[in-house]
């Protein structure tokens, strides 16, 4: 008998069928992986299982009994716990307060701190979680915050834990820790639904895999009887092609030079003494857990934010202390982290977004006005070149495009300016496999054309497969500069600052390396 199962769950949003007769089930003490791309319907299904959303058809069964889930409270009472991708924790509260929030039946109306901490500490020990009940959750590293989330669910008596993309925010070490926790819970007879799009993790932790594509179940297989290529085929409906990367020797010269860049004051430095050289024809990847100064570094290099000390030089042009307009003029391009907030003006059309940086100059400007005709022709050319799928053509607002097509608009704008160096900040975040492949191909194309590319990503696979060299950031400092054949373990240690390693200080073929 399944601990939790769905039968024929269907959920429609307008004409879109997000879940089309989904039938899945997780057994007691089992880890079921739910594999699928963005938009495959995983989140919709989980919201239904957690009572956040109601299905149009179908039923949910707990231990074989049909149940109605109208609110998270009911899901909790039925022993369903959820660890959201974006943690549902109050950063200003302590660990203990977060764990007991809303559990008046356990805490009583009046809360005594000492008693509260004692009971949460005891509970935490039962699962071998080393959590200090009095620490403020906002001060904890992400891996521990996740543990607080899990503890919160267990405290509510969860028998089935749903983990939504739990490794997206973790270092390899933290992922290892999480897997230990999952196995321990399994040993206690708990069931886990592990949502992911990462094949290797699914292979490692699950007993069975259910694959979703376009809202439908593609099949459920025993993990032991499958392999990543088969799962990939089920997930995207075709074979996964890894972009070919020519092992070209770097023939260029340092194009983008960052010297001792420091952002923030003593004591709370977002970036400390970062020195990097990005050569023409190479992709320099920056790996690191989110929030370790990558964003501040990029903003300071591009001139969006001021650096406190250090220099930025682009092909002989001093950019130190200049703003983004000068950086653009000098030939620096940026694919920002958040395409909707920073990369695009969502209410503007594709054409308008495409000329955002070049509207001030010929050929798009004629006298005081913008030459709509030229802009239109240019936009049509970009739409064709970058395969931007827009039903309404160049005049369509970018807000109605899919994430992948929005990113193509940003790429088109940045690449078509023929910059000398390109900074790409998490360029595939939230994109499906197809769009991700496209972005990767384009970045490699620019590399082949001799451009210097700085790629910031928290997806290790992405950094390792695309980069010629990898820089690692931890707490605002560089902890490593290594070749892409570095072991995952070394990389993980660099990401946590456990060691430093500088083996790739210049591209291959330069000097004696």
């Amino acid at each position, binding site marked *: 008998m399944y601990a939790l199962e769905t039968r024929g769950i269907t959920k429609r949003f307008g004409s879109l069928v997000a879940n089309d007769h989904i039938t899945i089930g997780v057994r007691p003490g089992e880890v079921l992986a739910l594999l699928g791309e963005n938009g495959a319907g995983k989140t919709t299904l989980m*919201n239904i299982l*957690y009572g*956040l*959303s109601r299905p149009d058809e179908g039923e949910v069964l707990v231990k074989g009994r049909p149940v109605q889930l109208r*609110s*998270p*409270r009911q899901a*909790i009472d039925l022993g369903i716990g*959820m660890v*959201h991708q974006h943690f*549902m*924790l*109050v*950063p*200003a*509260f302590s660990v203990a*307060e977060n764990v*007991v*929030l*809303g*559990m*008046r039946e356990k*805490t*009583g*109306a*009046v*809360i*005594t701190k000492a008693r509260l901490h004692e009971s949460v500490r005891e509970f935490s020990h039962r699962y071998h979680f080393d959590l200090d009940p009095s620490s403020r959750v906002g001060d904890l590293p992400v891996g521990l915050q996740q543990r607080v989330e899990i503890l*919160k669910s267990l405290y*509510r008596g969860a028998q089935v834990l749903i983990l939504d993309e739990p490794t997206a925010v973790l270092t390899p070490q933290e992922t290892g820790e999480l897997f230990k926790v999952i196995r321990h819970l399994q040993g206690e007879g708990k069931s886990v639904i592990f949502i992911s799009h990462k094949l290797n993790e699914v292979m490692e932790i699950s007993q069975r895999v259910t694959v979703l594509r376009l809202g439908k179940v593609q099949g459920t297989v025993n993990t032991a009887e499958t392999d990543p290529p088969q799962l990939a085929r089920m997930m995207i409906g075709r074979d996964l092609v890894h972009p070919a990367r020519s092992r070209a020797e770097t023939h260029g010269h340092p194009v983008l030079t960052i010297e001792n860049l420091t952002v923030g004051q003593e004591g709370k430095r977002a970036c400390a003494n970062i020195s990097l050289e990005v050569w023409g024809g190479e992709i320099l990847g920056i790996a690191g857990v989110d929030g370790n100064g990558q964003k501040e570094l990029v903003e300071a290099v591009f001139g969006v934010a001021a650096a406190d000390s250090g220099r930025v030089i682009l092909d002989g042009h001093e950019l130190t202390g200049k703003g983004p307009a000068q950086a653009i003029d000098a030939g620096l391009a940026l694919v920002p982290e958040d395409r909707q907030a920073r990369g695009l003006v969502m209410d503007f059309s594709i054409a308008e977004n495409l000329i955002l940086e070049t509207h001030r100059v010929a050929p798009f400007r004629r006298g005081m006005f913008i030459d709509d005709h030229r802009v239109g022709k240019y936009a049509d050319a970009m739409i064709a070149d970058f395969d931007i799928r827009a039903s309404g053509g160049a005049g369509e607002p970018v807000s109605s495009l899919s994430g992948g097509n929005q990113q193509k608009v940003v790429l088109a704008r940045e690449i078509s300016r023929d910059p000398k160096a390109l900074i790409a900040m998490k360029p595939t975040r939230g994109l499906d496999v197809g769009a991700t492949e496209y972005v990767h191909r384009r970045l490699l194309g620019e590399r082949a054309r001799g451009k210097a590319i700085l790629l910031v990503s928290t997806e290790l696979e992405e950094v390792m497969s695309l980069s010629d060299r990898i820089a690692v950031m931890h707490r605002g400092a560089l902890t490593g500069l290594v070749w892409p054949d570095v072991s995952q373990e070394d990389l993980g240690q660099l990401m946590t600052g456990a060691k430093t390693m500088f083996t790739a200080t210049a591209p291959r073929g330069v000097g004696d390396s």
Partner: protein
Amino acid sequence: MPAMTESLLTMTAITQLLTSTMRTTAPVLLAAVGGLYSDRSGVLSIGLEGYMLGGAFGGFVGAYYSGNLWIGLLAAMIAGALLALLYAYFAVTLGVSQAVAGTGLVMLAAGGTGFLNRVLFRSSGDFVRITPFQPVAIPGLSQIPVVGQIFFNQNVLVYLAFLLVPVTWFLLYRTALGLEIRSVGEHAKAADTVGLNVTLTRYGCVLVSGALAGLGGAYLSLAHANTFIEMMTAERGYMAFAIIIFGKYNPLGALGASLLFGFADAVQLKLQIAGLPIPYEFLLMLPYVLTLVAMVAAGRTVSPASLGTPYKKQ
């Protein structure tokens, strides 16, 4: 000058000044403590001025027609809560901009009370008065020299205002309900996903803030001026709004900030009576200016993270 300075500094004068401080503090404190509930649940308490006006008028009407001050207080709380209910509908249910809804509410309260006041009381042109709340000496404690006079010989609303501070502190920081209220103000979605009712919590907190600010308003008409005067709250509601921030969203902080305001108000009253050659308008400004300067000097405050953000379930 020397003679006057001296008279301001005698023991009696200081006792009087502090006694008066307690009274000038009470209405602002009632509004600030009330507003705390609203802010802590994530709904901007920008309508406090409106609830106070509603309470001042409702309290006066209730007391005048019933001849009973207690019924006046009840009416004040109901008036404040009704205005708060209207605000909550816009801010919580409809999710409109709270700054706009709150400001609109204050205008509605100002215009509404002014209009009704003229309809009901001002046909004759004279102020209609009531017999106000009188000081109630607490047996024993009020006999303590100086302290007894300052703290234990006040009217019932002063006691209530100061008593609400520890009560609110305990409720917010030592009870499960307080934890829930704060969680709704910090991270509404997190509260929702553990099964708390965000909408209900916010409505409740906004209504409490309306009722308490209504009492603060009633203080002005039933314990201070003995009548209702248009706009008699004189922006004390907005001061309470600022005082909450100055007090770092903590009842004890709000108490300190309210006392500062009340003290400055008491001082300026004293100075007006002393007949300094300064236009009284400047003296009236003193408590406001002082509180705002102190607030700026105190630096940044960390607000509840969801403050001002409506919550929509998906």
